[in-house]
């Protein structure tokens, strides 16, 4: 392999600051890193450069913003910044969030016409306090990555100046399928609402447009309101998180506006699965839910909610959890109340009646429903999320003589 090109690049870089490098030595180092230690060429070049920089006493090379404060050369559009960059940018503070640690003075989201990015102002930076809704010029901030999300860090070397700009900023919504970790805006419909699983959680569920769907979450915070299922919202500056290669939208600090009208949402996710119900799990049948606003957890037999303790004024609900098996794959099913009622023929009132008047109580509802459902062939339509199918409709399958004839021909055909 030829290292002269990389050496030439390094040489030119240091010539600018008046330093001459020993080409032979540099080439030898590159060769050793790449051939002996299997280091990627780009990484080797970087590593050798840094070592030389230290030798020559040059501060670490910063691709942008190094030309000093006040210069506009390093200014970038927010959409173009990358982790590792030193940047100067102008943007509007579109949201502020409570700092997560005493080391942080302020945090929030800053946006320009091209996009938006999260920012953090370190307490040590002694930066002036910034206001939501105002435009600022931020010079020599550094961009890093936290949980895969680019983050603009304001440190002691950064200068922040409020600028006289009042341009209204209207972010352009992205199709749901184009969202990437960071900050994003969408126009989407609330498709589903899930049980909240944490007492700090206000709401979670799924939003979607015609290109895709994404999980959303809103944490409890003053002034936050729940979204209505079936309504369309313009969601500006939501945080797009990535976990286990799945994206989700954190709407806690987003600006949300309800829209008139309706939009199409993707239906491709609504797959049909057929098979036999081979297991009904405990916790199926009639259950009691916590009545505390926004909680809705299933209570234990003693009416105990893991968060809100004893709740004598519980709310009854129906659900079935179980496994659907087609002989090749098993699917974990979750049937909601209306689906349970349609499939079992037992509605909530009847189930309540059984639970309150039968010696076995709620167990009797479980047993009766199991007798009606277990071992039956059904066709379910729903959405599969994290190995669980949230079933929207579930119907018993029926014998089709056409299928029978086809199979007779198939079996008899070759004999």
């Amino acid at each position, binding site marked *: 392999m030829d290292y002269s090109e990389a050496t030439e690049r390094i040489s030119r870089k240091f010539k600018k600051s008046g330093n001459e490098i020993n080409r032979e030595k540099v080439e030898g180092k590159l060769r050793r890193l790449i051939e002996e230690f299997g280091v990627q060429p780009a990484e080797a070049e970087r590593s050798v450069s840094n070592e030389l920089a230290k030798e020559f006493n040059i501060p670490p090379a910063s691709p942008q913003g190094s030309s000093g404060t006040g210069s506009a050369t390093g200014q970038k559009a927010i959409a173009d910044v990358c982790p590792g960059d030193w940047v100067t940018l102008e943007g509007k503070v579109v949201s502020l969030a409570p700092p997560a640690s005493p080391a942080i003075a302020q945090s929030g989201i800053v946006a320009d016409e091209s996009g938006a990015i999260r920012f953090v102002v370190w307490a040590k930076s002694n930066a002036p306090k910034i206001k939501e809704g105002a435009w600022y010029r931020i010079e020599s901030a550094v961009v890093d990555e936290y949980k895969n999300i680019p983050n603009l860090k304001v440190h002691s070397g950064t200068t922040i100046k409020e600028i006289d700009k009042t341009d209204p900023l209207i972010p352009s919504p992205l199709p749901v399928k184009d969202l990437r970790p960071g900050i994003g805006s969408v126009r989407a419909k609330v498709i589903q609402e899930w049980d909240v699983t944490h007492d700090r959680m206000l709401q979670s569920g799924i939003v979607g447009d015609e290109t895709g769907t994404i999980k959303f979450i809103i944490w409890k915070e003053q002034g936050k309101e729940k979204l209505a299922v079936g309504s369309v919202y313009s969601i500006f500056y939501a945080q797009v998180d990535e976990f286990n290669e799945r994206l989700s939208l954190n709407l806690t600090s987003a600006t949300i506006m309800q829209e008139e009208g309706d939009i199409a949402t993707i239906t491709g996710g609504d797959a049909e699965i057929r098979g*036999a119900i081979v297991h009904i799990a405990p916790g199926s049948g009639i259950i009691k839910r916590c009545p505390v606003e926004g909680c809705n957890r299933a209570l234990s037999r003693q009416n105990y909610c893991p968060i809100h303790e004893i709740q004598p004024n519980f709310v009854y609900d129906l659900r079935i959890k179980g496994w659907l098996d087609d002989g090749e794959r098993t699917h974990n099913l979750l049937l909601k109340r209306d689906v349970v009622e349609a499939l079992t023929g037992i509605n909530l009132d009847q189930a309540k009646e059984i639970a309150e008047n039968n010696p076995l109580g709620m167990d009797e509802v479980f047993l009766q429903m199991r007798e009606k459902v277990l*071992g*039956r062939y059904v066709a379910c339509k729903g959405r599969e999320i994290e190995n669980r199918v949230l079933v929207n409709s579930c119907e018993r399958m029926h014998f089709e003589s056409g299928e029978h004839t086809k199979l007779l021909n198939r079996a008899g055909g070759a004999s």
Partner: protein
Amino acid sequence: MSAKDTEMGRRDGSFEREPARRVFASELRECRYQFRDGEDEKSPTFVLLPTGERSNRIFLVGTLTEKTRQGEQNIFYRGRVIDPTGTFFIMAGSYQPEAMQQMAKIETPAFVAVTGKPNLYQKPDGSYLVSVRVESITVVDKETRDLWLLDTATRTLDRIDALATSTTPDILKAKEQYPTLDLATHRRMVYDALAQIKI
């Protein structure tokens, strides 16, 4: 699903349930090879179906014609479930209390749907028996039985076709373990089973 997938599924904590295979009684009766997938004490055991698929669990629907309660201290139930091709031997013991209670309640004869784990035993006289340890059993209607016949016929024909065309490790193993397997006989069995549905 390959064995590797299953193992990986376990390692990262996301449990993957073994699917319940669809197999006629006369095929299950011919199983002679049982193996454990992995070294672990809790590794699942499989019987290898003659048509070349491993099975840790089966789902069957047929007529429960007989059930007997056995044992003094450790009570268990045995039963016979008939399909158009033969008999499944099922049992539920004190380790499956739910299944045992369900079985105790059922009056024979009845159409039943059974989910359970097949186990291969060699009797003292050297002959083999495949018995199904019941996980759940419920009384169902004739339509469910007919749907199962169609389902099992489809799956069995799929396996017969795959045996001729594909070479998964399980298929190769089956060819080694069941050298006398006659595909035409199995095809015939499927046809006869289907023919029992009266229209």
